[in-house]
């Protein structure tokens, strides 16, 4: 099977209200990624966009980004899911041998759409939507409550996730929400959205885009002296109905991780994974995901955060970039996680670089209410 690597990437300073059009924003990251790779648009074989019509406010949103993403006369497609799924599709396109180099771009501008509404529009229109109760945050609130009840996880432990991530974000030049002096009490006293979810436990509405370039082995070695190999990937789609899922765990993430670990030959994630970047829209999600990924035992999320294992200088740093809690341009977030893990493996994460050597990293993306869809990538540095 062909080997495919991430060879270049580009992020941007994430903001609440970016002072440019969406198309120019996309163009900026596309150009920067090409520039890092030292290639031109002509060297790219296929372009995959990750955007959503209901977020962008226009149908067939990829139609007008042909010029900016560099898709002119290229084999282009659009994945209407979190950016990590678009990277997965691009990866499979290269695996077939039909394409050698792919550009993947994800973007969202929260300043352009009514907050949280696009999530409501994905609800079942017969029962859930007319109720008016379910939305991203209220669903997360139900999940948080259930998780706390099931395993005795406390609000303080959940708040500590936000403290960790927002402190990490302070060292990330791209992050939107940075709070260097943040302490647990700041989180616990922040505005209640839907109990028990507080403002600082929820992601910030963000404008941003991210681009990564994937290439098959031969081209990857020409383009980058340290390509980051995709060693394993897995994804899974769970049932829609919240009542049918055990919300205190994440079955689709467990299955996605299982597939990714199998492909990457990871038998002991706690020992073998050196850095983790999760798409956590809410603080409690990070703990649930850590359990699902096998980074700690089932129900042990609270103990995990207490043990400081997942701090930036812990043995399994989780979200050294600050994660989605620091910046969440929804359709780009999964790509940003891939980008951040690649940066860590290449030693290019600057001030938020983890101290120990990083050869293997895990990047995660999610889609749908309470992470109905999940995708896990295992990335490996070095020659293997």
């Amino acid at each position, binding site marked *: 099977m062909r080997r495919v690597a991430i060879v270049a990437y580009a992020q941007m300073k994430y903001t609440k209200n970016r002072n440019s059009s969406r198309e120019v924003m996309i163009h900026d990251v596309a150009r920067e990624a090409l520039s890092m790779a030292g290639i031109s648009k002509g060297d790219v074989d296929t372009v995959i966009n990750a955007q959503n019509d*209901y977020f962008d406010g226009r*149908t067939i949103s990829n139609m007008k980004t042909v*010029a900016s993403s560099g898709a002119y006369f290229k084999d282009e*497609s659009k*994945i209407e899911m979190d950016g990590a799924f678009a990277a997965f599709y691009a990866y499979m396109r290269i695996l077939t041998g039909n394409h050698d180099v792919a550009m993947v771009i994800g973007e969202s501008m929260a300043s352009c759409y009514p907050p949280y509404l696009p999530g409501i529009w994905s609800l079942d229109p017969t029962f859930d939507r007319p109720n008016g109760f379910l939305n991203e945050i209220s669903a997360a609130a139900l999940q948080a409550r259930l998780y706390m009840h099931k395993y005795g996880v406390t609000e303080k432990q959940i708040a500590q996730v936000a403290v960790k991530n927002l402190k990490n974000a302070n060292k990330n030049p791209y992050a939107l929400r940075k709070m260097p002096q943040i302490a647990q009490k700041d989180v616990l006293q922040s505005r209640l959205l839907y109990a028990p979810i507080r403002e600082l436990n929820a992601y910030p509405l963000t404008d941003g885009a991210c681009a990564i370039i994937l290439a098959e082995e031969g081209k990857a070695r020409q383009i980058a002296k340290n390509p980051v190999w995709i060693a394993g990937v897995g994804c899974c789609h769970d049932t829609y109905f919240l009542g049918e899922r055990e919300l205190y765990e994440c079955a689709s993430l467990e299955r996605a991780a299982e597939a990714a670990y199998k492909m990457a030959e990871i038998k002991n994630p706690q020992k073998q994974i050196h850095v983790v970047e999760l798409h956590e829209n809410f603080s409690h999600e990070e703990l649930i995901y850590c359990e699902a990924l096998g980074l700690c035992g089932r129900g042990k999320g609270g103990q995990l955060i207490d043990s400081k294992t997942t701090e930036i200088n812990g043995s399994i740093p989780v979200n050294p970039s600050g994660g989605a809690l620091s910046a969440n341009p929804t359709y780009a977030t999964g790509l940003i996680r891939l980008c951040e893990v690649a940066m860590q493996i290449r030693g290019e994460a600057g001030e938020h670089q983890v101290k120990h050597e990083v050869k293997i990293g895990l990047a995660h993306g999610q*889609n749908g209410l309470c992470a109905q869809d999940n995708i896990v990538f295992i990335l490996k540095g070095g020659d293997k």
Partner: protein
Amino acid sequence: MRNLAIVGIGLTKHVSKRRDVNIPELVYEAVKAALDDAGIHPKDLDALVTGNMPAFEGINCPELWGGGYWGGYRKPLIRITTGGSTGASVAQGAFYLVASGLYDIVLAVAFEKQSDGNTTIGLNTTALADVANMTAYGLSGPEIEASGAIGLFVYQATSYMAKSGCTIEHIDRAAAMLRNNAAKNPYAHLQQAGVTAADIAKTPMISYPLRFGHTCPTSDGACAMVLATEEKARKLSRKPVWVNGWAACSEEPAIVGLFGAGSINVDPAEQRSCKLAATKAYAMAGIKEPWKEIDLAEPYVPFAYQLFIYFERLLLCDEGNAPRLFDKGVMELDGNLPTCPSGAVVSSNAIGAAAMIRIAECALQIKGEAGQRQVTKDVHNAVAHGLGGQANLNVVTVLSDMPSRR
């Protein structure tokens, strides 16, 4: 790259309103038919690929709601949407999933339930950002409507007519042929057996040269296909249909560019991206002379005149020659290169599904399962086409009764 084949096909009858089912239930009908056709159970599926145009139903990412109905429970699932070409892009997504080596049996499903929404609004939302800018700089709503509502298709038609000798009578006759084909297709929406070119010519003119009789309806419908690796396909199906070549190519949207500015797609009839995609797809399939080797074509034809344009852009004849070939009967069901035996998009248009149905029709014809509309000649190689965006994304698929010589 490993070989892959279509082993199961499911279609629903396209109608203007399905008030008895919601989206998950409508799509389930096609999925069930495809799974039964393949003789498999949902647990045999390794992954799903799905898509539709969400503006038409008012539901963002409907596979979140319906995926479980379609066999997607706890499976890998991805969503692909590209406008009118969605069905073909979804199918190609499934081809990539199988060809990549990661998944053996994949379900591709595309659909549209247009009666749930307002089609005009759904279409208008493609242009809102541009409209905002154009009005800010002095164009009025009605003027923008005139340029947009009349649509790029009439310009594509007149430009093509000037270059090819295609007349409005040709278009009337093309529409009549397609409507008669559709009348033999139990799944098609508009079935008008016996309609003649003269009947079509009597329908009111919308905007020269487009008559009402030349245009597509809006439909509720779904299409599902099961793709499998060669090894599994040979076990599952007596006659697998091999997907030997596929490609897509994107250019700038025609007429109105970004923010209402200029678009370098000057002539919407040129469709260079279609020629590029077709060239790549044929090369991948090992087809060197498509005009000789292709037995059947299903271009994406929502407006009757496009039968001629896309016949040419799919490299099945010299540019400008399609109307002459049509006059000779080449494209009829008993012709040498039957085109759109299904009745084409002009007879059934559930936007998300339309481009996939072109692939499904080619497969049914290759299998000899097209019933009354089965073409006379044996079909060994067929080409299917999807058109998306503002005539800017062309998606071409080449199918065969034998696996590729890769």
